[in-house]
């Protein structure tokens, strides 16, 4: 059974801005799901929808099933019990997500003491030390404040924090953005190791399809609030069926591949604003292979074999 299941999830922000328009995804324990997309595609909205952290003005449709239970139907008490204990989040921008005037140790211990009230202060401190060591930081850093750490170390703290209550699902929202390539590699290595060791389910959200291609089992590519392609990570990256996934993959070229030498691949135009989507397939104005039917109606995800789905009329013809 899947640990997290989104069923036709839709989220509309105030002012009739549809950020997510019917997304269905699922993750099983021990599985890594990648969600790729550009700014405004709705990927971060999904993160917040899973733990019901959206602003009150947002309207939510469909359902978010966590362990089979609908998050948006829970009582507040139940919701608070589920938050962090079943699923936790590695937020992007570690500097701003940490409270600047509390030590890291106290911030990590906070959810432990909250969800396991019988834990003694001392046991909690011990656990904080373990968690820090698990993410590759010495236990004594618990006494430090966020500003005393480097960007990479803060990201590790965010991961330790996410693991505090032994959740079964972790959502990492752009965990490596703004980090240097080498530190990015360190963080990705750490996350993959944790999935293997702890049997976690991990949802990895990124704008960089190449990162997801190497780290994830499956990848879903989002555009304008919808999943446009889904399938095993390596094939989506290598042999995409939706022209948008192809363009995303091409934006991070393979070094050494002569096809990309002096040939930067990109798309004309810009990603659409969620409040003002083009008619038909929202991608058709930028699509290099669009034809007249593309502007008529939106295309649903179609099965294109081997556990793959793509929302493109020409998905069958590719390669």
């Amino acid at each position, binding site marked *: 059974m899947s640990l997290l299941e989104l069923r036709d999830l839709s989220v509309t922000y105030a002012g009739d801005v549809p950020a997510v328009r019917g997304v269905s995804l699922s993750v099983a324990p021990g599985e890594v799901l990648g969600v790729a997309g550009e700014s405004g595609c709705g990927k971060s909205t999904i993160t*917040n929808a899973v*733990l019901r*952290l959206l602003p009150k003005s947002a309207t939510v449709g469909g359902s978010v099933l966590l362990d089979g239970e609908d998050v948006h139907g829970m009582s507040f008490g139940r919701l*608070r*019990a*589920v*938050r*962090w*204990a079943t699923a*936790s*989040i590695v*937020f992007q*921008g570690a500097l*701003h*997500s*940490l*409270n*600047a*005037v509390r*030590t890291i140790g106290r911030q990590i211990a*906070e*959810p432990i003491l*909250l*969800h396991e009230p019988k834990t003694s202060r001392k046991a909690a401190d011990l656990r904080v030390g373990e968690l820090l060591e698990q993410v590759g930081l010495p236990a004594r850093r618990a006494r*430090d*404040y966020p*500003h*005393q750490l480097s960007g990479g170390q803060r990201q590790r703290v965010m991961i330790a*924090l996410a693991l505090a209550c032994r959740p079964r699902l972790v959502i990492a929202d752009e965990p490596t953005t703004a980090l240097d390539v080498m530190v990015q590699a360190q963080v990705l290595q750490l996350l993959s190791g944790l999935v293997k060791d702890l049997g976690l389910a991990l949802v990895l959200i990124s704008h960089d399809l190449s990162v997801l291609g190497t780290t994830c089992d499956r990848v879903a590519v989002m555009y304008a609030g919808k999943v446009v392609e889904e399938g095993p990570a390596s094939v989506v990256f290598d042999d995409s069926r939706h022209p948008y996934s192809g363009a995303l993959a091409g934006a991070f070229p393979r070094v050494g591949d002569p096809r990309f030498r002096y040939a930067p691949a990109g798309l004309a135009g810009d990603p659409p604003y969620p409040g003002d989507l083009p008619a038909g397939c929202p991608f058709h104005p930028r699509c290099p292979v669009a034809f007249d039917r593309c502007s008529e109606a939106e295309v649903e995800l179609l099965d294109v074999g081997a556990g793959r789905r793509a929302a493109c009329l020409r998905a069958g013809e590719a390669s």
Partner: protein
Amino acid sequence: MRGYVLKKVGWSIGTLLFVVVFNFFLFRLLPGDPIGLYTRGRNMSPDQLIRLRQQLNRPIGEQFITYLSNPFASTINSTRFNRPVWEIIGERVWPTVLLVGTAVLVAALAGVWLGIRSGWRRGSRFDRVTTGTTNTLYAMPEFWVGMMLIMWLPFFPSGGINSVGVTGFLPTVVDTAWHLVLPVTALAIVYLAEYTSIMRASLVDELRQDYLTLARAKGLREDLVRRRHAVPNALLPTMTLIFLNLGFVIGGAITVEYVFSWPGLGLLTAEALRGPDIPLLQAVFLLFSLGVIVFTLLADLLYAVLDPRVSTQ
């Protein structure tokens, strides 16, 4: 941390020097005869006049050096009271501390509470009413508030610190407290407006921060998010600002003390004005400036203690 403290202390010393020098020249480099300024409207004995003339006729550099050697030991008497100025000031310090201290305490507690409530529920009815009220209170001259209070609450004493004929410790305390009610109210109303808006603004600032989303995601109840994260963090700048304000607050007490004939430094300033009693004004001005410098330093140090971003640097 050490560097920070040293820097702040150094800055305070520099500022003190500036104020001392400024104070000297402000009064000396005026147009007209200094003797006239110092004696304007006063009857002085020829003896006093001669002494004053001796002092003021020395070269300005020499006067400056004498002054610098101990700026707080004015060699010139108050023209109004004909006594050394610092002696008079010494008698007037405590009433002001009592009045301003009480007013600030009341206003700070109430202001912080109001600020938290209205900032947390931004845009609510409570917030709109509070903001409207604080804006209005802020627009009121504190002495006018005092005059209105005297006019409409005549059963409270309208002036002084004690009634005639009250003796004994407890009766005096009660009587003083009774006299305190109106002036404290007048002052506190105006400070309240300021503190409320400071607290509200810094809480609203915190509410934008991402770490509150993280706190909610951890499963914290809303009131815990507020009590544990938002409010302590917002109190940090508020506390500092309140402390910083303390120095200026004393200056603001001038008109209220004047209206209520409260025998403190403010009333003394107002008395020194009618004359004007230049030596006394000069001394009072120096004291007020010193107060601001000291409280600014204390505010900076308090901030360093409260905010680990400074203390662990």
